[in-house]
């Protein structure tokens, strides 16, 4: 039987005395478009509500500027930084660090994840060690990173790589363990070599989980960058945040936070696109679930 709808909302009444005709809402284009619009707007309800509460709270004086600067002040701070070109420059520099660090960390995480997920020996050798290294805070590592790798780009990028490695690693291992062993057996019986099994069976089967790891890692990359950009740097939005903090500029601190949220939004968008493209067979992405 075909895979049925996966969601609770689609739980049709199971055995009503009379089940009425349910013509698909494909008759008129208007209700469908309205529904589509509602679906597209839904994710913005919470952020918009927060922004409105914030601004009215600030302008009415309910939220004192010491607690949270007014939204307009934050926008001013952003405009000023954008006009001087600082904002763009810092964002680009941070993006570069993220890109390199993420590429390194995600690659290492994937390789280790596949090794550990596919081989019991690799699991025995590496898993425990990685689980132990995982809990070491980046902040605590900074002094050692400086001692070992100096104060240039290297320690910054390495910290980002370290931060992204673990979520990718853990979710890759989890994804591989979740692949139906009968399908792996099938692949093997049908003459796929070890690499073929990985490529045709393990990777697609583990992909949803791996993408969850990558999605999370894209967030962690930004988190780590803030720590990394406290290492003797005068650029990047981590430095912006840090500097704003030192100079007691709450408006810029909040600006940096909004920038991070924006980065999160974009990272999320990217992964959603990849998911849609890479998982056309997955029930969640086939049933036209919420965008």
């Amino acid at each position, binding site marked *: 039987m075909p895979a049925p709808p996966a969601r609770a909302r689609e739980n049709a009444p199971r055995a009503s005395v009379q089940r009425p005709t349910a*013509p698909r809402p494909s008759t008129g284009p208007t209700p469908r478009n309205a529904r589509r619009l509602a679906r597209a707007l839904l994710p913005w309800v919470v952020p918009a509500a927060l922004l409105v509460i914030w601004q009215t709270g600030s302008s009415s004086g309910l939220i004192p500027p010491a607690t949270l600067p007014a939204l307009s002040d934050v926008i001013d701070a952003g405009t000023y930084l954008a006009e001087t070109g600082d904002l763009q420059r810092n964002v680009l520099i941070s993006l570069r660090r993220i890109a390199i660090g993420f590429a390194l960390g995600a690659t290492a995480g994937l390789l280790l994840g596949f090794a550990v997920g596919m081989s019991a020996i690799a699991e025995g050798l590496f898993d425990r060690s990685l689980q132990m290294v995982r809990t070491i805070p980046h902040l605590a590592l900074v002094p050692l990173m400086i001692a070992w790798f100096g104060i240039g780009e290297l320690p910054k990028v390495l910290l980002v790589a370290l931060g992204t490695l673990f979520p990718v690693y853990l979710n890759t291992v989890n994804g591989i363990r979740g692949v139906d062993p009968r399908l792996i057996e099938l692949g093997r019986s049908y003459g796929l070599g070890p690499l073929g099994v990985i490529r045709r069976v393990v990777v697609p089967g583990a992909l949803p989980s791996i993408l969850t790891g990558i999605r999370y890692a894209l967030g962690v990359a930004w988190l780590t960058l803030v720590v990394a950009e406290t290492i003797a740097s005068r650029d990047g939005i981590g430095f912006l945040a840090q500097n704003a903090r030192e100079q007691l500029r709450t408006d810029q601190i909040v600006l940096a936070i909004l920038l991070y949220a924006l980065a999160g939004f974009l990272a999320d968008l990217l992964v959603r696109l990849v998911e849609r493209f890479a998982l056309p067979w997955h029930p969640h992405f086939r049933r036209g679930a919420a965008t």
Partner: protein
Amino acid sequence: MSATGTAVRLRALAKTYASPVLRDLDLDVAPGAFVSLIGASGTGKSTLLRLVAGLERPDGGRIGLTRPDGGTPRVRPMFQEDRLLPWLRVEANVRLGLEREGADHVPALIDAVGLADRHRAWPSDLSGGQRQRVALARALAHRPDLLLLDEPFGALDALTRVRMQELLEGLWTSSGATVLLVTHDVDEALALSDRVLVLAEGRITRDLAVDLPRPRRRGDARIAAWRGELLDELLAHGTPLG
């Protein structure tokens, strides 16, 4: 068993996936009837069962399920695949959805499907036929008013199959439930049911009343004749292989 036969009434039922599967299908099943549905692979038998079970929305038409006493009918589908929950042992799978008090008959049922000594096994440790029997026991355990069976004996050898048929027939007789059975075995359909329906081209193209007393003998001449008729009916519409 306390089941109450349920009447099924389908009117102008239509369902389309990439291409139309069911179109304008009408069907009435009396409460307590045992109806078999046969048809070539891919003609929409499972789809019809899923529609009746309320698991799929029709693209048109009406589905009415009525219990004579006015209550809400208890419908239980047994799916074409076994759908055992991997994290529940055999007995827990059979008990699924039953209250603790209402499950006293479960051990007997597990015994009846020949799995008494495997009741603590994980589904992944069972053979194909064993898994199918667990799924059958689970469907029967609920004492449904309307039982929808999608090829429930497909993975069983000839002898086990006969035992399972006897089990089903016995429970049906004592319970009065309505049974809708999809099968690819014409003999099975003729041995068990009051009516045999042939599904082809999205409609019921043949509705054969099997008015023989039970238990039925395999060798009966009328059965052999009907068998030929039904196969001819199937052949007339062609298999998907042309």
